């Protein structure tokens, strides 16, 4: 009797907690299809006018293009450098491994507001403020830890004797790498790449400091949208970001299950 009651309370609490977690995320979807000029709930009418507005106003779709460009280049760069680091780490002795790993985790541990403040003056000196290369470099640093973590996880558990076996059977180092090491590491590299993309695509704080009229990312545009614009265009942008996140999450799950 008491057990049933306890389970009932626990299930009820779980339902409420799930609602608490998911509500603020999903609420942007119905709001984005409203016909009105301001946010109302329940939304009145059904129209795609805020999506049209999003793709007509250059400050909005332009920021989407900038964000995509920065995120794609960041992903390539961070995945390449991060995978190399993870491969190097796997061959280091334990103590050195811990120390070097900690070094590469630093950009994840240090609060982004500090990274943003620290990068500002060197970026100004190098002429990187408000440029796409500047954003790519900053985001690559922030994304690197996630690639290192994900590739290392696979590299640490990999049986390196397989590579030796391939070599002793006559494979050149390059062939052994391409046909043995790389396929084994592939899931970790893919997971790292997804995190790198998301890190860059979603990043606000550093972008607020190092982007400008020359290169504004979508999160920065949303930041000013939320603070200075009441129109549901922010809801439309939010809904687009939500779709991207869901697709990436689905891809991640698919890769994990394989």
């Amino acid at each position, binding site marked *: 009797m008491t057990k049933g009651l306890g389970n009932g309370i626990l299930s009820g*609490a779980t339902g409420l*907690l799930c*609602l*608490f977690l998911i509500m603020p995320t999903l609420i*942007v979807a119905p709001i984005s299809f409203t016909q009105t000029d301001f946010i109302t709930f329940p939304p009145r009418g059904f129209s795609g006018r805020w999506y049209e507005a999003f793709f007509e106003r250059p400050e909005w779709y332009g920021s989407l293009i900038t964000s995509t460009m920065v995120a794609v280049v960041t992903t390539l760069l961070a995945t390449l*450098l991060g995978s190399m680091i993870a491969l190097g780490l796997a061959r280091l002795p334990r103590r050195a491994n811990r120390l070097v790993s900690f070094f590469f985790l630093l950009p994840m541990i240090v609060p982004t507001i500090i990274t943003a403040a620290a990068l500002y003056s060197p970026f100004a000196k190098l002429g990187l403020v408000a440029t796409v290369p500047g954003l790519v470099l900053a985001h690559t640093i922030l994304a690197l830890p996630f690639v290192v973590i994900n590739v290392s996880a696979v590299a640490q558990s990999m049986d390196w004797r397989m590579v030796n076996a391939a070599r002793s059977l006559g494979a050149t180092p390059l062939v052994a790498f391409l046909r043995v090491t790389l396929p084994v590491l592939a899931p970790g590299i893919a997971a790292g790449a997804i995190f790198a993309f998301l890190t860059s695509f979603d990043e606000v704080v550093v972008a607020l400091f190092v982007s400008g009229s020359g290169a504004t990312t979508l999160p920065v545009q949303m930041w000013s949208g939320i*603070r200075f614009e009441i129109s549901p265009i922010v809801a439309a942008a939010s809904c687009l970001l939500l779709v991207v996140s*869901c697709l990436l999450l689905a891809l991640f799950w698919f890769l994990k299950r394989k």
Partner: protein
Amino acid sequence: MSARLRSAVPAALILPGFLLVAGLFVWPVAQLVATSFGDRAGALVHYVKIFTEPTYLRVVGRTLLLSAQTAMLCVLLGYPLAYQLNRAGGIGKAVILVCILIPFWTNLLVRTYGWIILLNPQGVINGVLRQLGLIEGAVPLVYNTTGVLIGMTQIMLPYMVLPLAAVMSRLDPAVMRAARSLGASPAQAFLKVYVPLTLPGVLGGFLLVFMLSLGFFVVPAILGGPRDLLLAQLIEFNINQTLNWPFAAALSTVLLAATVTLYWIGDRFFGLGRLWGAR
């Protein structure tokens, strides 16, 4: 391959990334820390200001308090959720996991904006409460400390639940059965066996949430009111509004020291590094 060449391989693989992080991250942060001590009036003037002037002490205190409250709420809400996530099977588990992971993977600004839609005076929650006749007017839920706390808790909750559920799943169910067969009531078994065995996960999660909350900027800036200034906002204010770089650098150094210390403690005693990686 000679031994020397073999030991050169890891170094060559790590070097490009090392140069990038050292040159464009570690060096600039070190420069920032150095700036904070570089005042002609004395190396510590800015630190004395932070820790003696009531205005700044209040900001430090408020940041610590809000981070602790967020972490506490995450423990209280996260424990039952992690427990249920670990126990549920099939569809139940999938639903809980989706409810945790979709927000976790969605842009912070989207969720913060979602909270504004839900919590503002004309928003969804106040509307529902008015419809039910429970209130007249509106309950102030956003642009104040309440709003920041609600938003922060929702954003930090996955950082608590996912590692905690991992700790719970590693717990051998036979331990609980043994406690029951030795005469413990379900409540006793839970309180005296289950809770102590999952405590490291709780403490690790608390530290992780507390540490991440200390440096939060976006959520307090949007959901908070003008009177709820936190450390990260004060840093931004001193850089962009008053252009007081040395003072901003000192504030950054305080935040940095607190964060790195907490990470070190967390990693040493609770394996924080491993907990963090669990998505």
